[in-house]
């Protein structure tokens, strides 16, 4: 394959995702001002010193967006990793082992999914301390139900195929069956799901922070920044729209990349086309 074969949408998505990641990693070197540094008037308009203007207490909005990328992406990545590991391991095991383990796990997941994630998240957060660790755990565990369902469904489908039966007839063990026969074939739906879960984590975290129940000040993520600046809207000050747009841009980029990855890895010719 060459770079030419990347469709335009995926290319834009890749570029933006890369830019956001770079901003998150190199935040202290990229940001023109400090995270909490008050550098100007309240809600100053965009200018050459403050490219995106300033926020509700006079901090540089661009700098805060760059630092906010760090918080948002960091928490979302960890939550996604947790939900993925948990969901995929349990889902595969349930599919291959079957029996009571599968039954108990599947009913439990059905139950958890019967309550909307946001509502259950709010219920739990009403008693838990609002720390970053709590957030990651709550988001990761609640979201792992979706990964579990997908992983189990995909693995069950593959498990009944003749090539898995052929491996069993040969005498292969469970480990070979899971890692060499099932996993390579489950990878492409799972990778695309990874993208979707990450987007969902970003949106969920932002919603919680926007509601004042996520990342707490003085730390700031993008959702929290929307909350800080939302009162400006009625005065025609668009500062709140900028972090909100950043969330949308990140989510759309990752979505575009995930879409493309799914299309590419579905090809069964080893990418040779």
């Amino acid at each position, binding site marked *: 394959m060459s770079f030419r074969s990347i469709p335009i949408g995926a290319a834009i998505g890749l570029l933006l995702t890369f830019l956001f990641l770079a901003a998150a990693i190199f935040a202290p070197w990229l940001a023109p001002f400090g995270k909490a540094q008050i550098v100007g008037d309240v809600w100053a308009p965009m200018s050459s010193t403050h490219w995106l203007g300033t926020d509700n207490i006079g901090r540089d909005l661009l700098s805060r967006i760059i630092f906010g990328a760090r918080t948002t992406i960091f928490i979302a990545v960890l939550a996604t990793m947790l939900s993925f590991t948990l969901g995929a391991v349990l889902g595969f095991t349930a599919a291959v082992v079957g029996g009571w383990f599968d039954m108990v796990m599947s009913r439990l997941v059905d139950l958890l999914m019967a309550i909307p994630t946001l509502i259950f998240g709010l219920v739990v957060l009403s008693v838990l301390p609002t720390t970053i660790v709590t957030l990651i755990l709550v988001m990761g565990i609640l979201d792992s139900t979706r990964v579990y369902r997908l992983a189990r469904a995909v693995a069950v489908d593959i498990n009944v195929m003749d090539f898995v039966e052929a*491996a069993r007839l040969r005498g292969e063990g469970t480990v070979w069956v899971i890692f060499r026969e099932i996993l390579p074939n489950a990878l492409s739906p799972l990778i695309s799901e990874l993208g979707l879960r990450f987007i969902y984590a970003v949106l969920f975290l932002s919603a919680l922070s926007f509601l004042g129940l996520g990342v707490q000040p003085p730390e700031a993520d993008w959702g929290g920044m929307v909350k800080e600046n939302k009162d400006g809207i009625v005065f025609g000050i668009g500062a709140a729209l900028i972090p909100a747009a950043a969330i949308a841009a990140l989510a759309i980029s990752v979505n575009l990349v995930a879409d493309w990855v799914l299309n590419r890895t579905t090809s069964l010719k080893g990418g040779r086309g």
Partner: protein
Amino acid sequence: MARTPTKGRKDGPLLDIRNLRIEATVYPPGEQPRNVVLVDDVSLKLERGKVLGLIGESGAGKSTIGLSSMGFGRGGVRITGGEILLNGRDIRKGNTGDVRRLRGKEVCYVAQSAAAAFNPAHKLMDQVVEASVEHRVSSRAEAEKRAVEFFRKLSLPSPETIGDRYPHQVSGGQLQRVMTAMALCSEPDLIVFDEPTTALDVTTQIDVLAAIKEAIRDTHVAALYITHDLAVVAQVSDEIMVLRHGKLVEWGGTQQIIKEPRQEYTNALVSVHHIEHQEHAPGNKPLLSVKNVTASYGNSAIKVLKDVSVDIYPGQTLAVVGESGSGKSTLARAITGLLPPESGSVAFEDRTLANRLADRPRADLRELQMIYQMADVAMNPRQTVATIIGRPLEFYFKMRGRERDQRVAELLEKIEMGKGFADRYPAELSGGQKQRVCIARALAAKPKLIICDEVTSALDPLVANGILKLLLGLQKEEDVAYLFITHDLATVKSIADSIAVMYRGEVVRYGPKSQVLSPPFDDYTDLLLRSVPEMEIGWLEKAIQGRKMVGAGN
């Protein structure tokens, strides 16, 4: 069945297709869209009341040509050249309204899978008369009356009330006949039959075939009969057209095509079942001995296998023949240990095999290999051919590196595929090549017995023939025994040493091939043998008259 044959407005042929060209755009995932030519410069003429058989392997373009007579292209299929004259006017020149008025009125269609072609939400009668009412061929009451007559003619059970049923309440063979009645109901000039009996069991196929033939004869409707089975088409057609890769190979009278084919390809199709095989007499000690095996799925009381006993001798082939639901594939599952028998035992050489797969030692597993019907799902699509064939070598013989690669190359040689295929993925192989790789994977274990579960039934006849020849050759070289499971008696005749006929979970006839295939027959074997289409004009009538029992599909 009074019918006015003068509905046609003009003299001359009913259907006259000239220089037809059909193209389609395909969208392979992750690749650029591509244009492919499905039909290239094909011309045909069909007189009123005549039947033309279109025959060819998959990808020959026969269905595409059939549908083009209705101005229809499936998916992204486009008719890009030529003329299609129906009743004297070119339907390519008509607008969409003109084409619509001819579909269901002048030309009707009978699909391969009637089960999918009927709308599950409506009663059969509503669907059967729909086209007649839509095109004002007759009033609804008249159409229903005619439909009932056709139901009776096609020997459907309770013809007066079967129309009140929903599609899922009727069996597959019956649905196929209801669909034929649906096509006949609007009194068209032409019916396109698209593989109408392919999805049916042989003993059901013969009844549906006879019903279709009689209906065609009595109504004087013309037909395009599309199939891949030359023996079937020979029963109903006046003329036969052989197609390959979208091009015309040969076109002639039925007698000429099946008796004096002029083209080499046609000759290959005609003589596809002729494989020279000398039957071996059973040896004195069986390799595998199945004794009184009974098995069922789950805890159900329905026994899928009832007291089955068969022997397989070293280096020989036992063919297990039966229709769907006969328990022949279950027998394979019981032997391999995938479905542990409830009672009875399976002995291999001198030892009794453990009932459950998990309890069998690796050496037992090695000596008994299996090849599946669907080669594309029997191989892991994410592994290369080298990995697929190499794994048994690593697993059973601990071969590594160059030694293994060397052996993989030898095996590829044996299945008549070159070394170049080693790093291909299954998706890059044709159907026949995939099945060959599966054979190589089984051979890699150096087994004494290979279970072949319908290994040729998903393949085109010529490809299947190649696979059978390969299997016979390998049997001579490697001295391996086969348990050959199939529904196709023609295959059995060409390769078996002994035969077991299964019916509803029981072995109804068992012995050396020559003995099983000579009279006197039991009723079921008689029916099965008579149901296998023969390349002989008039076979159908003889078979229907001579049989002692009627197929289960009725």
